[in-house]
């Protein structure tokens, strides 16, 4: 049954985005918010608001009992988790359904299956989706490891099977280095995890992060092409574009088809993203993980395909079949998203909070703003630093880059420091214009070009 009353269990710009999509569908919106978010834009825009706890996320946005109580009290019939917080918490998804409500997302079992990296990798392999080549099973014996390395080829990575936090990892360029590196990694594994079991994985020196947006209704899935999110700082995406500027038609077709195959193999329901590493040198792509939720960078996909992903999510969750056939979805032009964070790029990206004293968003053709800001709003210190996403769309990548520069120059956010100047500086980089980057590029560029006021 179509959703009538939707509780939004999130905050910030994604809560605003969900409210907009729901209101366009005639759904009554209920913003669940912490005490620190009473004055948020989501609360202002929603039909109704309900407080779920104090400022600390652990006691509000991460508190399933408080959210379920709020849903019952406001007679909600569905819960949208947004991204982050409880969006990929299978126990929460299950609790929502057990309370008789619709969870806007996949089944709890699907979240579990794709949330476990080893299980997701096995599921991908079973669906014929390439994963980063690695050794089968745990290696402890040097001679056996050398044979496995020879079979896999170099460069490769040695990783502690029980590893984490970067411990017990060695990158090996060729066979001559292997034995010493393997033994060193074993010693480190033993010291850090009490286990000298190792496995080998292909090392991709200049990996690009490319991800495919999919939609499924539990029976059928379609893709909405890919996004490239290689510009990252501390593993956080900073600047994203759609489509990827480096895929040729044949590779794009194979990549997107593999994502649909995997989505259909798990009978995926809702919006999801399959993340891949792309090795530009060899033209190979490898599945790394799936996000079983809407993503921050979804607007660039909406811009290049014309598909409203949030609307589709809500319709599917309400029980409707996918409204789209694959042949209906076309790539049109290029879109770019810049994340505007409350961080000072001239001071080590220190968090910056304050009250928005002036606010001028860009306008004109092909510009979209997804933001939680309004003039006079005081940014709370308790949550993520992302304030806004500036998104542009144009007929081609070069045109979109020019439009982005124009849009960023029109933007004025007063009262606190943001990463806006970082994005303007990035547009001065020849590598960005040539799309000649990889996941390590931005940190290297920042080291080589320290932002100066």
């Amino acid at each position, binding site marked *: 049954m179509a959703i009538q009353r939707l509780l939004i269990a999130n905050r910030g710009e994604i809560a605003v985005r969900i409210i907009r999509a729901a209101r366009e569908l005639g759904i009554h919106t209920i913003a669940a918010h912490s005490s620190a978010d009473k004055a948020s834009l989501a609360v202002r825009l929603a039909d109704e608001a309900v407080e779920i706890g104090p400022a600390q996320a652990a006691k509000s946005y991460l508190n399933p009992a408080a959210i379920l109580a709020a849903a019952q009290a406001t007679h909600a019939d569905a819960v949208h988790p947004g991204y982050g917080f409880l969006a990929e918490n299978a126990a929460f998804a299950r609790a929502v359904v057990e309370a008789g409500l619709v969870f806007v997302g996949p089944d709890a079992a699907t979240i579990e299956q794709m949330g476990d990296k080893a299980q997701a990798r096995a599921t991908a392999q079973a669906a014929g989706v390439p994963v980063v080549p690695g050794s089968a099973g745990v290696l402890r014996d040097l001679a056996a490891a050398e044979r496995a390395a020879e079979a896999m080829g170099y460069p490769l990575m040695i990783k502690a099977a029980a590893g984490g936090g970067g411990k017990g990892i060695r990158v090996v360029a060729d066979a001559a280095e292997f034995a010493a590196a393997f033994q060193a990694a074993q010693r480190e594994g033993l010291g850090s995890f009490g286990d000298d079991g190792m496995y080998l994985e292909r090392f991709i020196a200049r990996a690009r992060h490319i991800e495919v947006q999919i939609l499924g209704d539990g029976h059928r899935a379609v893709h909405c092409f890919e996004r490239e999110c290689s510009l990252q700082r501390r593993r956080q995406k900073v600047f994203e574009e759609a489509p990827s500027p480096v895929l040729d038609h044949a590779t794009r077709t194979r990549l997107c088809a593999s994502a649909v195959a995997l989505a259909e193999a798990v009978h995926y329901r809702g919006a999801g993203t399959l993340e891949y590493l792309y090795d530009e040198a060899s033209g190979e792509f490898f599945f790394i993980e799936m996000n079983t939720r809407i993503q921050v960078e979804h607007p660039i996909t909406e811009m290049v395909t014309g598909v409203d992903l949030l609307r589709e999510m809500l319709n599917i969750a309400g029980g409707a079949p996918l409204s789209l056939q694959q042949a209906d979805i076309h790539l049109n032009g290029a879109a770019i998203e810049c994340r505007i964070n409350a961080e000072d790029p001239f001071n080590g990206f220190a968090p910056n*909070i304050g009250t928005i004293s002036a606010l001028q968003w860009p306008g004109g053709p092909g510009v979209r703003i997804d933001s939680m800001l309004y003039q006079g709003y005081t940014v709370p210190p308790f949550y*993520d630093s992302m304030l806004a996403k500036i998104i542009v769309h144009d007929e081609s990548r070069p045109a979109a880059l020019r439009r982005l520069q124009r849009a960023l120059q029109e933007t004025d956010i007063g009262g606190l420091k943001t990463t806006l100047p970082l994005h303007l500086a990035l547009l001065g980089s020849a590598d960005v214009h040539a799309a000649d980057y990889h996941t390590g590029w931005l940190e290297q560029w920042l080291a080589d070009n320290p932002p100066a006021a």
Partner: protein
Amino acid sequence: MATIDIISPLPGTFYRKSAPDAPPFAEVGDTIAAGAVIGLVEVMKQYSELAADDGGKIMAFHIEDGDAVEAGQVVAVLEV
């Protein structure tokens, strides 16, 4: 007997421990040196150490572990 307030320069969430299962940086009754860390303030998922400018004996914490703190708020009181 003089007392000095240790004030958080930042708003955010105050923690008395470096990790949920770690011991507190300092307890009431402890004598600490100038520059000693007494807690962390989390602002937008980044952590800053809160240190005492002067040495002394901790008389009280006014903000508990995991509680919200405002910029300028007294976190702890030292007897110097």
